[in-house]
């Protein structure tokens, strides 16, 4: 769909559409008819000339249903249906951010260029050239059910450098109409009596250039009850049925959508990767959060490194959609160990270290995740584990916790040459005590590549390799 050297522009239009209808009876077939009729009315609204797209943070307004010949297609006048989408950027006012722009600049120069996003707002024009029919008030007295909700429309279109606004808006309109049809289906399917579940559109980025796919889920229904829907989607998009792509946690994060919880995501993407002779990179797949000493106002300096590595792993499982459980606290981790009989009750609230075996036990207890344990009798042997680690990152792609000597770390990937045997380890260090400053973390190597000499050559190590549950 997109040329990786020219990422193109994503146009995203969002806006609420009001859904209102009157049900004169509670008979199922009547309800279905009325709901369908109401969606039909909304589809007409989307096709009407009153529909407007406003480009966020800009003076640009487009009336996508107005005939292409008309000069009233957009405001300012310079914008015509033939204007290129990428040229819209010049009209958009961007805020200057102080410290974060430095970080972004650094990470942008090292990351693959991502598509820029132009956000549009869906609105209706209520003014028209007059005169128009006079104001009337209609009052009816009749018992009925009044159903009211707001549909959160959210459509995305990926454009290339040659696409015009005219073409892009036409596609957005098609998407809106299609989305309303999907919403109608989902609403009717999940309706209980007169209660309507709000149909919610979500975007998922599929692998192998399948691009962004939009799915409508009923808002109040949890993932656990939507497995059949997901199965159908996996089949439709020819995706393997052993890993999740369509859980709510897998929702695509647009480049301008920041995480609000304060944790850094995938800091390794800002690091320059080594190139080994005949070597390849085998990295963690998906998204994790960087957990380290002193976070969450928890002073675990000196004893909590394995806990933090475990938190990073849990964050991975949560963000890939394998669990809805939030990342556990130190106490919750300790309690889990008590619950499985591994530790005494006094363990909870203590500052005792844990190792790979405990990490494995907690992952099993709290997330039902099994892990493989790899034992290395001395650190120097780690250099020969290239193939196994590479395979792990290919098949499972989960972060690895490694404990040995007096330290615990997280391995996010390896660079390994099958021919020369050269190896490097991408390490995420939980011993960092500073703030979430990507620049510092990457510059100072708190997330960075280490050689085989990083390990204590004589100490023994245990690695916990979490396995992905086979589920969608």
């Amino acid at each position, binding site marked *: 769909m997109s040329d990786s050297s020219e990422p193109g522009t994503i146009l995203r239009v969002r806006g609420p559409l009001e859904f209102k209808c009157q049900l004169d009876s509670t008979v199922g077939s009547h309800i279905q008819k009325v709901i369908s009729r109401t969606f039909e009315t909304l589809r007409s609204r989307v096709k009407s000339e009153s529909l407007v797209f406003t480009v966020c943070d800009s003076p640009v307004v487009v009336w996508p249903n107005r005939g292409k010949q008309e000069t009233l297609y957009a405001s300012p006048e310079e914008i015509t249906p033939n204007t290129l989408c990428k040229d819209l950027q010049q009209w958009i006012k961007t805020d200057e951010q102080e410290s974060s722009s430095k970080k972004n600049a650094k990470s942008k120069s090292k990351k693959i260029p991502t598509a820029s996003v132009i956000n549009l707002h869906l*609105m209706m024009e209520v003014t028209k050239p007059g005169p128009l029919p*006079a*104001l009337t008030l209609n009052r009816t*007295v*009749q018992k009925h059910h009044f159903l009211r909700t707001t549909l959160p429309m959210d459509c995305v279109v990926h454009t290339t450098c040659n696409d015009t606004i005219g073409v892009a808006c036409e596609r957005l309109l098609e998407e809106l109409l299609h989305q309303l049809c999907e919403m109608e289906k989902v609403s009717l399917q999940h309706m209980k009596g007169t209660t309507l579940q709000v149909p919610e559109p979500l975007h998922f980025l599929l692998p192998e250039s399948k691009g962004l796919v939009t799915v409508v889920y009923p808002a109040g229904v949890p993932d656990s009850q939507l497995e059949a829907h997901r199965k159908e989607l996996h089949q439709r998009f020819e995706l393997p049925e052993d890993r999740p792509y369509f859980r709510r946690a897998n929702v695509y994060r647009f480049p301008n959508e920041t995480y609000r919880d304060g944790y850094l995501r995938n800091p390794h993407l800002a690091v320059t990767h080594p190139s080994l002779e005949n070597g390849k990179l085998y990295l963690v797949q998906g998204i994790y959060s960087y957990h380290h000493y002193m976070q969450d106002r928890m002073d675990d300096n000196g004893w909590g490194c394995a806990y933090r590595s475990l938190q990073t792993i849990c964050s991975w499982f949560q963000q890939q959609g394998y669990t809805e459980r939030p990342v556990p606290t130190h106490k919750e981790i300790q309690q889990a160990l008590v619950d499985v009989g591994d530790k005494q009750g006094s363990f909870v609230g203590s500052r005792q270290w844990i190792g790979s075996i405990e990490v494995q036990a907690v992952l099993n207890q709290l997330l039902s995740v099994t892990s493989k344990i790899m034992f290395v009798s001395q650190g120097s042997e780690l250099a020969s584990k290239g193939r196994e680690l590479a395979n792990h990152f290919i098949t499972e792609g989960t972060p690895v916790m490694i404990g040995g000597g007096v330290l615990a770390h997280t391995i996010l990937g390896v660079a390994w040459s099958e021919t020369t045997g050269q190896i490097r380890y991408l390490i995420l260090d939980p011993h960092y005590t500073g703030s979430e400053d990507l620049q510092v973390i990457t510059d100072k190597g708190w997330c960075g590549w280490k050689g085989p000499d990083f390990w204590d050559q004589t100490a023994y190590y245990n690695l916990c390799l979490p396995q992905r549950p086979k589920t969608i």
Partner: protein
Amino acid sequence: MGRGYIVEDSVEGYLSKMCEAGAGPVTGVLIGQSSGQRDFVVTATRTPQREESAGAAGSSLDKEWVTEHARQVSRMLPGGLSVLGVFIISDADPKDMLISLRQLVFAVENLISKDRLWAAADDDITDRIALHVNSKTRKAVCRSLDVRDPKSTAKPADWRYQSGVCSCWATVSCCLEVDLLLALPENRTSIESMEKCLKDGLKAWAHQVEDGVCLIDGKKLPADTELTAGQKRNVRQTFTAQLLLTPDGQRLADGAQQCGGSVSLRGAIHSRAYLHSNKPKVNLAEKLLKRDVVSTVAVRVQMLLEELLTEEEGKGNSKEKHWAEQLSLPRRVLCPVKGHGPVCVCDYQFSDEGLAEVTDRLKEMLDLDAAEQDLDTRQELAAEPADSSGPTEPSVETVQEPKRNTYTGVAMATAAALLATAASLLYLQDD
């Protein structure tokens, strides 16, 4: 530092005239526009005589009557114009009149702002005029009162006459469609219930309007752009506005509710606002126009409800289980104020009224002498006559034509074929 009021010359003549009449104190309201720097008084109108007290004790001030008149007047003012204060003409000492003036100013302000559906803005001017004119010396003493603070002292203010104050005022206008559907609660479908329902629905709609995007002459301009920049001075300008709205999901209740009925408000209105000519900004135009949009709809609904409440006794509808009715709301008719540039006042004409009733009300409320041909009826169409085959509900009543009671309680005559006249005027419009 007191406020300075720049007052249209004609107001001086008007106040003088009432000094001559000399039959006890005369009260009235002052109309104009306040801005950050200056305030402009465009016209004044005396409180009409109360029928019962004509010739009787005119020396005591009837606070209720004055404030009710002020409220009626404020309904007849398009955007940009508002009641700026109160005047009293008497031969008493200005200091003695101050207490009365203060009472009236606050009472007027409280009554007018009570029914407002839009929220006060931080940059709204809250000073109102307390003007005393000595009927013997014709001397005008002007003070301003801050209506946010009932304990505030009256500050001296400048009162200066000038010609052509609003000759170059700009006009912003639009024609806007309303489409509201509201549920009536179960077992409560009375007029009072409908009134509450409409008030809540209009309030939510007013928020939508407030948050809406406003285009001026097709452009979305930054808020502090000067509207009349780059234009020749002393040229009267008109601007067309467009309003883009989005439903606000948070405010209205979600979900299903059992209802006893529904109320819908559909159709279009003409909205306009006037802007002073002292470098008005886009955000002022937007604010004043949006307020007029909300006011003109709210006022008409209020008027209709007032009519329905007075004639509720006559209905036997409550006996029926299902019924429907369609009521037309009055249309806006504009009337230019001679010698005041583009400025017009307005009135609302019910479908069973003729234009004569409109000119009567303009005379009574605003002391304006207007002929029927002066009236601008082109901006809004009159409602169409009742069609009993209209709604598809099982039992439909024919359209109700609420009888309009005028301010002085004179019953209205039924309409002539004004609709035909309105239609033909429509085809004659030249733009």
